């Protein structure tokens, strides 16, 4: 029964597979955990982007861009451009861009106090546990 479901699911995700391969862009061997201040969010497609100022070990501020999902479903739920205020402190778990730039896919994003940024998703430290 489990096998059947997984098989059916693989077929269902075929359209997503053709869209964009994150494995080509981000490096599984370079996990990142970033804590920083939101300087802006691009509510754009096909992926939204969170702009984050992160202090490195020496205290220098580096600007990161965190790739997320299409914002359209969030907008339908009532989110808007003010929903992630500048100056918010957030934590991002993800993987760094393969080309070495200060970009990462935001696998999990949350406020520093553990609250979810938008919906679903696990709090940091519960990596891969699923959602809801």
């Amino acid at each position, binding site marked *: 029964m489990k096998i059947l479901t997984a098989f059916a699911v693989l077929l269902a995700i075929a359209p997503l597979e053709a869209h964009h391969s994150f494995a080509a*862009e981000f490096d599984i061997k370079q996990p990142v955990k970033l804590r920083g201040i939101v300087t802006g969010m691009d509510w754009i497609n096909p992926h939204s982007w969170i702009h984050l100022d992160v202090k490195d070990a020496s205290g220098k501020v580096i600007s990161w861009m965190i790739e997320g999902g299409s914002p359209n479903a969030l907008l339908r739920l009532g989110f808007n451009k003010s929903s992630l205020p500048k100056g918010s402190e957030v934590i991002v778990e993800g993987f760094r861009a393969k080309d070495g730039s200060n970009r990462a896919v935001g696998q999990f994003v949350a406020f520093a106090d553990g609250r979810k940024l938008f919906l679903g998703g696990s709090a940091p430290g519960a990596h891969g546990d699923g959602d809801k």
Partner: protein
Amino acid sequence: MNISRVLIAAAALSAAAWCQNAVPLTPDGHPDLQGIWTSASVVPLERPVELKGKEFYTPQEAAENARKVLGISSWERLGVQAREHYNMSQYGLDLSQVKVASTLRTSLIIGPDGRIPPFTPEARQRLAERAARNRGHQFDGPENRPLQEQCLVYSTEGPPMLPAAYNSNLEIVQDAGHVAIVQEMIHSARVIPTDNSPHLPADIRQWSGDSRGHWEGATLVVDTTNFTARTSFRGSTENLHLTERFTRLDSGTILYEFTAEDPHTWTRPWTAQITLARIEGPLFEFACHEGNLGIANTLSAARAAEKAAAEAAPKGSK
């Protein structure tokens, strides 16, 4: 003509017969298909081989299947892509977070088999040659990337219009003589004249072909030809010929059916039925190309990997 087609046609005819009032009409007297609809489905395009011959679930089996499909995590849904992907449900993009149309079907493709028919020998060769040419070159340049990654055309627009992992939303607007279908991804609009006027000349090919329509009773029938060779719907050539049918079943449901035919690709035509369910919307802009940092990042990553490999290679060798 298979049983399910007969059943659906009978349903549509009886709907038309007993109540043109149940399906509201536009001012020019045709069924009103207008509104915002989702094609999101718990059922895959092709039937799992274990279910061969079983075209329909019982209502209990359908409910159980839906519960199972919607109950898995977004990580399971991502399958092999989960490792480097963001959590979909953070953004409301998981299938369990949107309205899904109900159906008793075990697959979108109808018939005893429920699968895309075999390729013709010509198609197998063509696709094998294409794959061989691309092997090792998938990251050479932008045109080597999938059409969706280039933001050229999405499978939601097609035609045919297939449900995607998310944002499977469309809006229909009608005037006297046209039915316009707007897909959220990628903000495309097909304005289909319903006067059965002739297709474009054969020399003009389009990514989405050329669609002409007419009403058959309560059903909008749309004929699409003039595809490009690069459109390649599931491997099709520019000879792809699509017939779509739209029948409004009730206030919240449209039955969308398409038949794909290309004698240079499949051994026989094949048909799928997708239920469209009414949703509140609205559609939001999906400006794909304008926000497409992904393709640049992907190509840049490939160039960085090549550079790293070249620098790591022992001197004097390649």
